[in-house]
């Protein structure tokens, strides 16, 4: 039976069982993962995942059921199960679920690609990885482990709801990266390219992976990992901190992305990831950062890892301001949470990591908009400070206030020039104080960083999200917590 027919049957079945609203997502995921480690293909895996999920409102409460078995009988049974679950939910509700108005559309969206990453022969991809990984390894005997990564993912999905949406999407992304670990006695240092967590990724074709040009950067990865073994410790104290994009992306993710998720702010993630210091009464009142700080959630940026046509509630991709000239002005929302705060529409942030999972408010691309500085100028105009590059450790409290990050590498800045390399750099702060101290944001090195491993929800889901940023400077930041 055609997927559209199956979808219609589910919507009809749910209505017969008493649902007042139903949506169904039917999807298929292809996920190719390649890892070369220490000269051998450690992992060559392809995952094919398919199935469907039915979400209903019945008696004013939510129910959700999903299955991998895409047959007419199973779709009907799962739909009835979702309604039964909703009826159980209705035993414990304070009020009926209400949704912001729909944007019911019939449409198709596909990630624009030049070269389909799934059609590139495996051996061609493996050759690139092997060449890059060997270059890292052969740089020095001190390189204990070297790895090169490639990953491509494709999601084909149909969304239908009782508001009249019928949306077919094909989202493709790929990317990769490099890692070198140098060891001498018990001193261990690592360098990654272009960013940690197996590299950087974008909703583009194989051309994105090619543009990373791993083999050309491999020597530097090996060199810096080895050099770090002899670098001095990160100094402790307060100093001006310059952060490059491959660390700033995670700073944005943790200290702006998560706290502006409205489900967190409304307390519905309180049991696991936590809540948010950005509570609704602070909207359009709280100074989140300096006037240099402009942050948007934008699912429309070409090539961003969080770019799509529609979210998993059928809301079209859009850009919304979260922070404007330092003022906290917006949330990432769903139809339900948008209604809760009286917003006209959802921000289009509902996403599930598979058709079997329940959509949650997830980041799309959370971007710090470019400022008017050149990245080199920021360093040139810093009298004394530290430049930190490439995330390696991260931690933030459950309201997203107190954070601590570590980066792979740093350099001291003295009188406007990058000087001595520093190992084990860390910095810490309180979110609004930290962003309030931002006095320079670059434009020339602004780019999209893509990380495919954002965790949220119970049961846990892993989402692919993007962050656009360049380099930024923060005044009087506490650094060097680790002796």
């Amino acid at each position, binding site marked *: 039976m055609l997927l559209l027919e199956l979808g219609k049957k589910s919507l009809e079945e749910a209505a017969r069982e008493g649902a007042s609203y139903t949506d169904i997502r039917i999807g298929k995921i292809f996920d190719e993962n390649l890892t070369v480690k220490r000269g051998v*293909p450690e992992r060559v*895996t392809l995952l094919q995942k398919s199935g469907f999920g039915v979400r209903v409102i019945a008696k004013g409460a939510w129910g959700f059921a999903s299955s991998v078995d895409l047959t007419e009988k199973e779709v009907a049974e799962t739909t009835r199960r979702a309604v039964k679950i909703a009826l159980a939910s209705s035993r414990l509700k304070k009020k009926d679920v209400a949704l912001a108005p729909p944007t019911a559309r019939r449409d198709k969206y596909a990630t624009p690609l030049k070269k389909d990453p799934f059609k590139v022969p495996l051996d061609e991809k493996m050759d690139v990885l092997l060449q890059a990984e060997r270059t890292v390894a052969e740089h020095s005997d001190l390189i204990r482990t070297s790895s090169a990564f490639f990953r491509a993912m494709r999601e084909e999905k149909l969304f239908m709801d009782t508001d009249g949406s019928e949306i077919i999407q094909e989202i493709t992304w790929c990317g990769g990266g490099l890692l070198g670990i140098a060891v001498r006695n018990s001193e261990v240092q690592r360098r990654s390219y272009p960013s940690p967590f197996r590299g950087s990724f974008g909703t583009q074709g194989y051309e994105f992976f090619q543009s990373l040009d791993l083999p050309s950067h491999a020597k530097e990865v090996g060199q810096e990992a080895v050099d770090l073994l002899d670098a001095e410790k990160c100094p402790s104290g307060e100093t001006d901190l310059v952060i490059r994009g491959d660390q700033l992306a995670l700073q944005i993710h943790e200290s702006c992305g998560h706290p502006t998720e409205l489900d967190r702010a409304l307390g519905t993630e309180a049991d696991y990831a936590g809540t948010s210091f950005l509570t609704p009464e602070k909207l359009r009142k709280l100074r989140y950062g300096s006037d240099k700080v402009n942050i948007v959630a934008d699912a429309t940026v070409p090539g961003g890892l969080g770019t799509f046509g529609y979210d998993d509630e059928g809301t079209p991709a859009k850009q919304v301001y979260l922070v404007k000239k330092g003022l906290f002005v917006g949330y990432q929302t769903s139809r339900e949470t948008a209604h809760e705060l009286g917003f006209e529409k959802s921000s289009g942030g509902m996403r599930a990591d598979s058709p079997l999972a329940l959509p949650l408010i997830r980041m799309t691309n959370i971007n710090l908009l470019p400022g008017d500085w050149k990245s080199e100028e920021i360093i040139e105009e810093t009298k004394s400070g530290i430049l930190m590059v490439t995330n390696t450790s991260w931690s933030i409290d459950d309201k997203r206030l107190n954070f601590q990050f570590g980066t792979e590498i740093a350099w001291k800045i003295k009188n406007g020039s990058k000087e001595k390399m520093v190992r084990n750099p860390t910095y810490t702060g309180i979110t609004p104080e930290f962003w309030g101290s931002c006095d320079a944001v670059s434009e020339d090195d602004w780019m999209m960083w893509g990380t495919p491993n954002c965790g949220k929800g119970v049961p846990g889901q892993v989402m692919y999200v993007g962050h656009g940023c360049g380099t930024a400077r923060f005044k009087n930041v506490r650094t060097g917590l680790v002796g």
Partner: protein
Amino acid sequence: MVTERLLNVAEKTVELAVKEKVNQAQVASFLWDSALTRYANSQIHQNLASKAGGVAIKVVIGKKVGTLTVNTLEEGQIKEAIRQAVKIAEVIPPNKDFKSLPKPEKWTPMQGVFDEETATCSPDYRAERVKEVISTAHSKSPIVKAVAGSLSTDMLAFAVSNSLGVSAWAKISLASLNVTVISQANGSEGFGYAMQYSRHIKDINPVLIADKSAEKSINSVKPTKLTPGEYETVLSPLAVGTVFDYLGYIGFSATPYQDGQSFVKYHLNEQVFDEKISVRDDTRDKRTLIAVPVDGEGVPKKAVKLVDNGVVSEGSICYDSLTSGRAKGKRSTGHAFPPITSGFGQARPMPINMVAAPGDATTEEMIKETRHGIFVTRFHYVNPVEPTKAILTGLTRDGTFLIKKGEIVGPIVNMRFTDSMLSALKDVPMMGKELEQGETTTVPAIKLKKLRFTGVTQY
């Protein structure tokens, strides 16, 4: 029978793969029925059930290994998946570290680890238990503002077969309840948390867990700020479990050990922790939760002494077949991950059945013996800062209290710790005599002579 069906699928798929002229083949088939009722702001807001399943196929041609996971148990689709797995193996370079798929070893199924009532628990039953949680918490005090958490019931089954004769299976049920209570008075919030795991839904005690969480929450309102520094610290079993989870990930797994990133590598046969600390990873210990007799490669799970009276050694390391193949004279300890969730098998081999030897103190005695210290209910967002030194950072959460002269004197604002566990766990004056079962650890409360707190947050 679920396991018979899964074993049949696995064995048949291996037969089909071998016909494709591969040297070796391994198939892990799995089914995972999960249901979860999640609540927040004292009402149910997410309520779901999911049926997942599929096969993970590994084919070997010479030393070339191709893996494909597909979430179907349907024969036609599986045949196509085999062809694709073979295609992968044909074109990739050989993996010189690959020795062989595991050979069959004697194993015995585990009894009493599956409960039908848990596997088939209804949404109505879960909703009623959640109702008890919420009403219990609110009945404790009018300052209880909101109750959040989840009650889940799961059935997980998998079977593994390979062309060398491995034929094994596992089936377990799991239930868990966690309760977060938020209280509010005079503009100040207090948080509390408690949880319970079991393989039997009927063992879950909503009233007890809600009561524990609410009490912590009510007592956490109006916290005072404490200056960062080194403090005597009493860690609840929840907090201890988180620390050992991370030590398992960064230290006792063969992956970081072979990469030179494990602290164990640099302290072989040294007493790195207090001699009171002994931890085994043993799936057959009745006090552990995820009791599966074999791993995701069908290898019987072996008990591993992770820490023996404070000493770590080569024997502390958990291996799967890939990492053991890479090391001289090592065999898999049965720590390959079962083929669940993404089915990638990408997770590193690591302990998930950690059981600590109990001490002889109660938590009350630990508090009584503390002059000026901190009681930690739970840690949040812990991450390694320097794995080879076992330096972790993270924050306290859901009930952090100041202890003075042997008594809890009041709540404190949550604090960040950044410290080496080689230092923090080196001097443990007291270990709890009661073990608490978590998801992957069964551990007691521990009193640390000192833990380094490096920051303070604002609530």
